[in-house]
């Protein structure tokens, strides 16, 4: 076979792979959009129930805004470092990918730690999800987001292990792209939790 024929065959295969990968990633995009609808249901529940405190304290007395700001900045920065990791993955810099995902992972853990501290504090001061409709919907909404973060962190740990062992193979880069979409999406959901639950809660709407 001539050299140009080989090159053209290789080109065809690369294009076919790129098309297959972009279809997979589109499928994951559709999943993320349906997950948004799940969160919309929880936000609607919270919006309806947030004044039903059953004689208990409202959100403005329960939430510590500096703590929430720290959570927000940690998650926001982790979304950025996740983006840097994906850029390195496309440039095939394995060590940089591992480094940036490690930073993302630690920031995700910081976020989760702060959230669980808040939950424990609320529970210990007698404001658990059993207290009122407001707190039930609060814990369901924020807890579902925290659960997604936990899933994302486990996925990230597995992917770091895979990249460390097998390197930046085509399958690994595709999965890292999906993971980064998932992580950015969780950051976007958090903007709304930060605004609707915490900031508007502090104003006392």
């Amino acid at each position: 076979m001539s050299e140009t024929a080989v090159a053209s065959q290789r080109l065809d295969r690369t294009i076919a792979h790129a098309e297959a990968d972009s279809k997979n990633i589109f499928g994951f995009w559709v999943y993320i959009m349906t997950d948004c609808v799940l969160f919309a249901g929880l936000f609607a529940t919270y919006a309806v129930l947030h004044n039903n405190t059953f004689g208990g304290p409202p959100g403005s007395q329960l939430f510590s805004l500096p703590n929430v700001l720290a959570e927000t900045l940690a998650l926001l920065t982790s979304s950025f470092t996740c983006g840097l990791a994906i850029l390195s993955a496309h440039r095939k810099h394995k060590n940089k990918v591992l480094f940036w995902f490690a930073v993302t992972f630690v920031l995700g853990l910081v976020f989760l730690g702060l959230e669980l501290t808040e939950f424990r504090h609320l529970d210990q001061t007698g404001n658990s999800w059993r207290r009122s409709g407001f707190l039930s919907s609060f814990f369901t909404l924020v807890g579902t987001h925290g659960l997604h973060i936990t899933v994302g962190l486990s996925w990230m740990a597995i992917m770091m292990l895979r990249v460390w062992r097998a390197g930046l193979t085509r399958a690994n880069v595709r999965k890292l792209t999906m993971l980064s979409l998932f992580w950015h999406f969780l950051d976007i959901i958090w903007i709304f939790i930060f605004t609707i639950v915490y900031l508007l809660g502090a104003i006392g709407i």
Partner: protein
Amino acid sequence: MSKQPDMIISRHDTDRGTPRMYVSGFVASIVLTLTAYLLVVNHALSRRILIGAVVALALTQFLVQVVFFLHLGRETKPRWKLAVFLFMTMVVLILVFGSLWIMTNLNYRMTPAQINTYMNNQAGF
């Protein structure tokens, strides 16, 4: 010749951002978050304007992150990602504002005692 595959792939692959996009998205998000936070903590504006400002800042940040982090709008035709995204937005708006509308109406029309009587009269409650 060696450049050609990359060029063709970049036409198919719409999930790639540039370092500049990530940096501008990050800086904009930090500024928007801190502005909203400081406005609320310092009670800088009257209540009504404050609520409007905080919601506007959140919506701006939502758009910033969708464009700079999720790279929406960078795909070529047919724009399926955008189509699914717009449909999702519609469902979310109907779900959230529909729920609020119905529940506010219910709240307005019935007292808790009326709701209890109504529920007791219905078989199964």
